[in-house]
């Protein structure tokens, strides 16, 4: 009962063992690990937001579209309007947060399930991204030039590229990590999204377990009626969670847009789904009130590892989806069995 993430950790170990046995050895070199951790981290940032919202008893299906929409907004800020990052990034986050708040307010006011409200926003935001992109570019569905626009901005290294490049270069030159023939390290540094992922997972865990707000989130998701009767400001908590989730999506948008240098209308497609999967693998209950950020952290890693890892194996890639589904099933079954074992019967 007490440790939702236990199963996810066990699942991660299981998946690792599976790939150690079946995948090409390059998967677990430093470069290989960075390679599958990058998409896992991008998904994970979304998944932690989604997990907190799920613990609070709600869903947000619009986060995938939000990635596209916030990406567009950020792209317009920096390319079209030429704003520096110190303005563009907060503006994007505030803007995304506002959309999240609208989601939240509609859910709370109407009493409708968040599933259906945010589903409407899934379509609306996706559609607006397309319209906005065409307006911004004069007809194309891709907005380019972000990399040039943010070049040299002092904030850029925090949101794109690789961190600790100096360290890695010196490690490579001293032969501690692999390097290319020309002497540059195979892994130039740690992609910033991985660092963000770690920081956000730690923060979310702290908030959930060590602050009054965390208690309110669990309470609001466990039984919003009982929570409100006990004095928890349920509406405020839930709206804040919607804002937080939207901001997570916006952060992912900023990072990926700066990394790719461009954004298009299909960014973040179905990420809402993957984020929920990762959260559920991580032990969150769909009914709310139970789960953990650490669980979502490992859930995202499992998902990322399976998606990318299968490419390292010799399986016919036509079977990709079959394996993905099968491994998901095995991971959650295993995860569930372990949790029941460790924490006693429910």
């Amino acid at each position, binding site marked *: 009962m007490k440790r939702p993430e236990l199963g996810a950790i066990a699942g991660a170990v299981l998946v690792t063992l599976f790939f150690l046995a079946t995948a090409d050895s390059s998967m677990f070199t430093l470069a290989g690990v960075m390679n599958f951790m990058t998409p896992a981290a991008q998904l994970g940032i979304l998944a932690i937001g989604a997990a907190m919202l799920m613990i609070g008893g709600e869903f947000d299906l619009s986060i995938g579209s939000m990635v596209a929409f916030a990406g567009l907004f950020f792209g317009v800020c920096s390319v079209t309007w030429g704003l520096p990052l110190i303005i563009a990034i907060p503006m994007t986050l505030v803007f995304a947060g506002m959309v999240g708040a609208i989601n939240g307010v509609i859910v709370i006011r109407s009493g409708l399930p968040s599933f259906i409200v945010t589903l409407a926003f899934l379509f609306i935001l996706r559609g607006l991204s397309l319209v906005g992109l065409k307006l911004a570019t004069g007809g194309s569905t891709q907005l380019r030039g972000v990399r040039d626009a943010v070049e040299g901005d002092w904030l850029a290294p925090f949101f794109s590229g690789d961190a600790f490049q100096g360290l890695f270069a010196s490690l490579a030159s001293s032969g501690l990590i692999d390097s290319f023939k020309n002497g540059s390290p195979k892994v130039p540094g740690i992609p910033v999204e991985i660092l963000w992922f770690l920081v956000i997972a730690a923060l979310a865990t*702290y908030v959930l377990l060590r602050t009054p707000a965390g*208690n309110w989130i*669990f*309470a609001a998701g466990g039984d919003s009626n*009982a929570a409100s*009767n*006990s*004095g*928890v400001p349920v509406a405020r908590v839930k709206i804040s969670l919607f804002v937080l989730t939207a901001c997570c999506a916006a952060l992912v948008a900023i990072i990926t847009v700066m990394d790719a240098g461009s954004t298009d209308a299909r960014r973040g497609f179905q990420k809402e789904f993957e984020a929920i999967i990762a959260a559920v693998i991580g032990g969150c209950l769909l009914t709310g009130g139970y789960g953990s950020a650490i669980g979502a952290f490992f859930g995202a890693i499992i998902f990322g590892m399976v998606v990318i890892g299968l490419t390292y194996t010799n399986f016919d890639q036509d079977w990709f989806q079959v394996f993905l589904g099968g491994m998901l099933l095995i991971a959650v079954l295993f995860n569930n069995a372990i949790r029941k074992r460790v924490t006693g019967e429910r």
Partner: protein
Amino acid sequence: MSNDSTFHHGDAPKTAPIIQMNGIEKHFGNIIALAGVSFDVRPGECHCLLGDNGAGKSTFIKTMSGVHKPTKGTITFEGKPLSFDSPRDAMEAGIATVFQDLAMIPLMSVTRNFFMGREPTRGRGLLKRFDTQRANEITIEEMRKMGINLRGPDQAVGTLSGGERQTVAIARAVFFGAKVLILDEPTSALGVRQTSNVLATIDRVRKQGIGVVFISHNVRHALAVGDRFTVLNRGKTLGTAKRGEITPSELQDLMAGGQELAQLGGSLGGTV
């Protein structure tokens, strides 16, 4: 029923009421749950709210604690007209409630439930955090006072027995009860020892000048601690009696809505 109860301390105090409800009505769609109820609580008294099943007691105290907005009627709190927008408002004004359904989250630990909405913190600024250790200590201690020895403060409430759960809700309300303490059938699932603890607690709390609203179906419990008795019937007040003005069997007849009881007379000595 003897009148020399340990809990009785003369007439109800004559001070001004803390909270006064006037002509409260509450409709759910076309169901009329309350059809004009007036009620008040004074500091240091225990005011019992009695009535048959479905009389509207729970609905009434929910309007008092901010859960429902009354369809009609006025609430005066400490002399000022007031309307609570949420239970949190009522709580902040100093009203603590034990709801009939307890308002507990089964998946959460006892401590987290105990402090839900009013967590003690440590540190400040960004480092302000839930002081789990102190919370655990308080929880264990308050539960012990009520006669329950917990296995651990992190046991999920969902795995507690019915009575243990109810005790958590009562201990919580007593701990936070500032001016008014509302108890909706608090002893219904309790064992004899826990019941006597709760009744003793009501008495203790009342002596500190807190006004207590006590709902019960047990005439004996009500008479043991009550200073005044208001009886509801089908959403209307049947009347209020002071302690001593009414005999147990009169009270019991009132609570049953004046209808005949099944052939029980002899066996239960007049009070079920």
